[in-house]
């Protein structure tokens, strides 16, 4: 159990990044990461020693997120009064706007494609590990990735995402 701290701590920034991209709210993202870490600690002895720890943590985080979303949908739409703010990037305003578009456009994708684009494109998970996190056969990852990226591109090109973002 002593090694849990040494193994988990270096992975927390990546978990926070993935969680933030999923929920787009800093506090909610950290709540999600906290739940993930608590679950990982309570299941520490059950993790597969041969498996990739990062992939295991992403799997826990995603499952928690998906079941929380499902629960929220069952309870009806939840209107968040806190506006989500972009992370304090020291980018120029112009670059900031363009980047904001990609994250906003990503929000328009179904969760599965969104997660895949994040896990592969940002977190650098192997295609096999990404398949494991999503619980799909490795063969379907590539086609979903391809569909997700094409959809993201069409959202960005038609500017639909920008429009939706503005009226939110």
């Amino acid at each position, binding site marked *: 159990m002593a090694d849990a701290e040494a193994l988990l701590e270096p992975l927390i*920034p990546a978990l926070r990044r993935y969680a933030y*991209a999923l929920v787009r709210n800093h506090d909610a993202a950290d709540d999600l990461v906290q739940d993930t870490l608590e679950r990982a600690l309570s299941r520490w002895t*059950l993790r597969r020693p041969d498996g990739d720890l990062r992939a295991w943590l992403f799997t826990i985080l995603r499952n928690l997120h998906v079941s929380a979303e499902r629960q929220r949908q069952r309870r009806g739409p939840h209107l968040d009064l806190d506006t989500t703010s972009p992370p304090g990037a020291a980018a120029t305003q112009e670059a900031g706007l363009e980047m904001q578009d*990609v994250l906003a456009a990503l929000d328009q994708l179904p969760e599965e494609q969104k997660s895949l*684009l994040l896990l592969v*494109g940002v977190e650098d998970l192997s295609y096999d590990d990404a398949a494991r996190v999503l619980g799909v056969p490795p063969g379907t990852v590539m086609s979903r990735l391809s569909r997700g990226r*094409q959809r993201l591109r069409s959202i960005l090109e038609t500017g639909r995402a920008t429009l939706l973002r503005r009226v939110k």
Partner: protein
Amino acid sequence: MTGNEFPISEDDLQAFVDDRLDDTRRAALQTHLVAHPELADRIAAERRHRALLRGQLEAKFAEPVPARLRVANLRAARRGSRIVSMRSIAAALTIFVVGAMAGWFANSMTPASRAPAPTTSVAQSATAAFRTFVVEVAHPVEVGVQQEAHLLQWLSKRLGRKLAAPDLQPFGYRLMGGRLLPGGSGAAAQLMYDDASGRRLTIYVRAADGTETAFRFQQEGEAATFAWIDQGFGFAVTAVATREELLPIAEAVYRGFEGKS
């Protein structure tokens, strides 16, 4: 088209976007893209969006980790939370009452006039109970696995049948605990398991008419259930899984109960 290039697949294109192609393959693909400007535009856009997304999230990655997420602090909090407070007992009780009522209503909503087959009715009650408690984060079970002996003794007494918790470790599922529910004319027991990634599975048992039936499979939304009747009791195994994944587990549960009735 040069004619002698090797075929370029969509998988290659994605691996190129992710910079995961080996040198030969990448060179071949770049040649291909020169010949197909429309495709080249698409791939360039996908690479650009990927880079922009990474850039956007870089600041989040670089942020210092807040104190509440430090592993040492989380473990300290975990030790503290083992002392069960009166507040959480009250919360557990409230959730149980609400859940029991939900189960009761779900049960009474099935039309009595149509009198569904006993296995169908067991499967339906099991699915309703699964839906109610599997999303529960704070208090998924009434009695936890720490008090396994007490739990099984209690459920056995209320059920009027010796109840053992089948070992599902070979399938990666570990017992979390269980609870008592209203079921048909008597009591029903629900045992909850989860796997390393937090996926949950329930075993539902209650008295039911009938002697013995084959497995009945039922899919309701994402929840899949195998139910059967054996010697006056109905059993159901429910999880978010495919029929193929669930069948061996249901068989193991069936074998587990068969010898212990």
